[in-house]
């Protein structure tokens, strides 16, 4: 056992450890006392300690730097000056006679003056004790300060964590996307969850320049990739959503719609059902192409006249149509319907939403490249699918068949866009955040600005993966809503390097420091382990 320090004083939550000379303790480093039971502690602050008074030290320094200190040095520097680490005990682990671990939140202090050592992977065996590997959710490897315990993979229970939502926060470039990539990669061959990724940077599927989910050996079976781009890689499905899949309520909390417009929308829907959007554009396109005003309708399309007969104010329809037009990227020019985005009134994309739902329901991972979509359209696409999943799962729940279904989780980049405080109606994502777990639906929110997410929603995101963040206000927002008391970890969070994170979850006994390897390295590793492809035969061709 390598001693790296000794407990010299302190109190619960603030234990002082004198660092052994030659050792270097780091903020975030995990230390341990004892073998069984083990107290696991985490360094959250470091200060200098000295046997000399401040005045003495200053004088000594003065002698040195003012040139009067030739030949002077500290005789036994290690004894006189040293580093004091402030640590807090995070877990108390006992292995009982039948080899089972019992981990608890420490309620007592470790023995005074105990010798302290660095942790080893073995100290964390309790984390994987009794876990169902099939249901695991990979997050990275254990980290102690900046050193990585590569052989200690950190996983949490997937179904639990996913349905109770995950929030991933960091300032830009600290590795949020990298972490999600790693997470998805390891989830690809797990059937317990379907994951929908709304990918505004088109970074998750991969391309020839950067690897992604498509490089996974199971990609063909388990990854579905939608992209609106005609030059998207092979195997991708062109993202096209028929307006028949779009329902009035999908706009809730996505597009700002007035009560009057909402009423008009529902009236149109009642009349035309699935064709309501097509009708809105077609009819007025027809009217426009006639190029003269019709006496009976006073130049209005049939829908307008119909709405007015139902007491909808003049002008409401036009305003509504404009909003829907912008959201869907469908425009009307000179009597023609121009579809610039992924929504179409034509005959394609009819099954898209159903296909995505079906894929999710069978535990696949669906990535939607929304990089070319307007923010509105992206959220609308998400809203349509999320609504579908929600409706379907609610159905399963009432039929009592929800148990056999995989969990569905939705990855949202820049989560405050959809989870942020709004005065209007709560959108489907807000609903999922609040009550999704009853239906086995969860969110994986990614953000730089957790503070923009309402406290209530933040509190509902029961696993927080906190990467580096130098913004104090952001750290505060996260810490205040974390599952563990992280008040002393703020500094540490500020100093996290790329890929380093702290996982605070109601499903972990303590906030676990992790490091998520660079995704490219994970890919390389998997590739190396991959077996040779079988020889293929094209059967049925005899000539």
């Amino acid at each position: 056992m390598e001693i790296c320090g000794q407990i010299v004083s302190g109190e619960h939550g603030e234990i002082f450890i004198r660092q052994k000379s030659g050792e270097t303790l780091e903020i975030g480093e995990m230390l341990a006392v004892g073998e069984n039971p083990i107290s696991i502690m985490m360094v959250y602050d470091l200060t200098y300690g000295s046997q000399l008074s401040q005045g003495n030290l200053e004088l000594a320094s003065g002698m040195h730097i003012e040139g009067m200190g030739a030949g002077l040095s500290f005789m036994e520097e290690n004894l006189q000056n040293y580093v004091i680490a402030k640590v807090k005990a995070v877990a108390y682990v006992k292995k009982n006679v039948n080899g089972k671990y019992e981990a608890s939140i420490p309620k007592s202090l470790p023995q005074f003056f105990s010798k302290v050592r660095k942790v080893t992977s073995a100290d964390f065996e309790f984390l994987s004790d009794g876990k169902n590997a099939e249901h695991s959710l990979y997050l990275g490897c254990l980290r102690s300060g900046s050193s990585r315990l590569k052989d200690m993979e950190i996983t949490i229970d997937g179904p639990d964590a996913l349905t109770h939502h995950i929030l991933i926060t960091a300032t830009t470039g600290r590795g949020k996307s990298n972490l999600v990539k790693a997470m998805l990669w390891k989830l690809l061959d797990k059937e317990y969850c379907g994951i929908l990724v709304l990918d505004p940077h088109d970074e998750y599927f991969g391309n020839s320049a950067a690897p992604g989910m498509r490089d996974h050996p199971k990609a063909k079976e388990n990854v579905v990739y939608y992209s609106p781009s005609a030059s998207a890689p092979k195997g991708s499905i062109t993202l096209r959503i028929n307006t028949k899949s779009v329902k009035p309520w999908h706009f809730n909390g996505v597009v700002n719609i007035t009560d009057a417009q909402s009423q008009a929308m529902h009236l149109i829907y009642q009349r035309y059902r699935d064709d309501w959007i097509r009708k809105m554009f077609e009819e007025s396109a027809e009217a426009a192409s006639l190029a003269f005003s019709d006496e009976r309708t006073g130049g209005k399309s049939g829908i307008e006249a119909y709405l007015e007969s139902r007491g909808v104010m003049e002008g409401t329809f036009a305003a509504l149509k404009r909003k829907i037009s912008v959201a869907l990227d469908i425009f009307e020019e000179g009597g023609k319907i121009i579809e610039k985005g992924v929504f179409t009134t034509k005959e394609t994309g009819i099954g898209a939403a159903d296909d995505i739902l079906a894929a999710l329901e069978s535990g696949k991972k669906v990535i939607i490249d929304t990089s070319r979509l307007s923010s509105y359209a992206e959220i609308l696409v998400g809203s349509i699918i999320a609504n579908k999943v929600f409706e379907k799962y609610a159905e399963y729940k009432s039929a009592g068949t929800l148990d056999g279904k995989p969990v569905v989780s939705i990855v949202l980049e820049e989560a405050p866009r959809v989870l942020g405080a709004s005065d209007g109606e709560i959108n489907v994502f807000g609903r999922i955040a609040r009550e999704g777990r009853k239906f086995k639906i969860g969110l994986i929110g990614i953000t730089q600005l957790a503070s923009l997410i309402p406290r209530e929603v933040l509190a509902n995101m029961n696993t927080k993966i906190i990467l580096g963040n130098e913004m104090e206000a952001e750290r505060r927002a996260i810490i205040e809503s974390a599952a563990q008391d992280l008040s002393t970890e703020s500094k540490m969070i500020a100093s996290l390097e790329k890929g380093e994170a702290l996982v605070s979850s109601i499903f972990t006994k303590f906030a676990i420091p992790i490091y998520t390897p660079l995704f490219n390295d994970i890919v390389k590793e998997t590739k190396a382990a991959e077996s040779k492809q079988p020889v293929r035969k094209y059967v049925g061709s005899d000539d």
Partner: protein
Amino acid sequence: MPSKSIFDFSNSGDAAKNEETKEKKAPREKHKREAPRSAAAHKHEISKSKIAQPPAPVPPKKEGTIRFAHLADCHLGAFRDDTLRELNIKAFENAIDKSVAEGADFIIIAGDLFHTNVPDMRVAERCARKLRHLKEKGIEVFVLYGSHDYSPNEKSIIDVLKGAGLFNKLGGGEYVGDKLKLKPSEFRGIPIIGLLARTSGLEKSDYEHLDTEALEALPNPKIFVYHSAIAEYRPSFLKDAECVPLSLFPKGFAYYAGGHVHERREVDERGYGTFVFPGHTFGADFRDLESDAEEAPGFYIVDIESGAINLHFVPVEIPEIMLADFKADGKGALEFKEELQHWANGGNFAGKIVMLRVAGKLASGKPNEVELEKIRETVLEKGALVCVLNRGSLSSAERLAVQIDTSKSKDEIEREIIGEFVSKASFKDDALNGKKGAELAISLSGALKQEQRANETKDTYHRRVFGDVRKVMDSAEGQK
């Protein structure tokens, strides 16, 4: 018996589901009469002749134009009913005749020419005759295996006819390493490439390994023939079908001649070309016939004219199809029977295909007391070519009133209940009746009841269950 079509009409499906399928199908608004089915009208009929606006006639072929016909999913040999089977063949013959009449230089049949790989010889003979006729006229035919007439381990009628020199078989190629290299056929300098289909969408991995670069390098105009559903165009009735995404297709073909999806569709796809599914020529099951009632099936005449593609849809001539829907909800069996009888007696069915669908829950009495067979007889007497009954969704409020002896084991109770139900029902297919029917039901439910094993992926589980079910079905078929 070959695999069941993914389009097969489910006799045991409930009314609501069929209703939904209909609703969600994306028909051409203009060709379809717009008349929602109201609950008040107990029955509702659609006759094809009333709704299908005849499409514009095909313009005469111009000088320098290459014209070809594109058919798919003829499913020759489908239907057990003699009349329907004959009508199906006739529709095919009509399509060929029309192709000849329109001056087609060649014909592409994009899969499922036959309903099975080894069809009834009479059917094969009729087809061969027609093909020989084409040969004599010098019209070349290019045929691709479909999902129905392909067999992984036996020869197919397609091989026989090809061997007889009656057509060119598309879909040749081989794997070179990890790449599938397809061998182009050719008609007057136009490359025609086919990717053959396999049962239940297994060709998808061929698409994934397709050497598209080589195909894209071929000179245009060129034609890509395939027999697969395309993910982006998947109609909602093809819910669980394996689909191929567009991105796996080679780009830049003037024409993508599709088959497999029994619904007409033409799409100009940016970066690719024109994708066309002609739909079936007659159909292979009752759902197909129902869609035929709304819109005439047919095929495409395609002109390649200085690189441009012009499409002309040509309907085939088939008898008028009449759809009749009756709802039994809240009625007594006898009352319902009278209502049907009244309709049958007053109808004019001469020369029509009548599709009679009864659904709903009888307030009293049992479904067999409605005596649908008798009604069918009346319809036939009144001149119908064929009367197709769909009564799977007709149920009785009394249906669950079964005496259960709790001293018996679960399996025994199950056998008894199934036995009781089967004895009350009468199916046209005798294999489903009596003790044989009950045994079949029990073995089937046994096969379907299996749970996924711990070490099994979803895919292998599906395959295992599917295989077991097929074994049950095959042996039932074999006993006949």
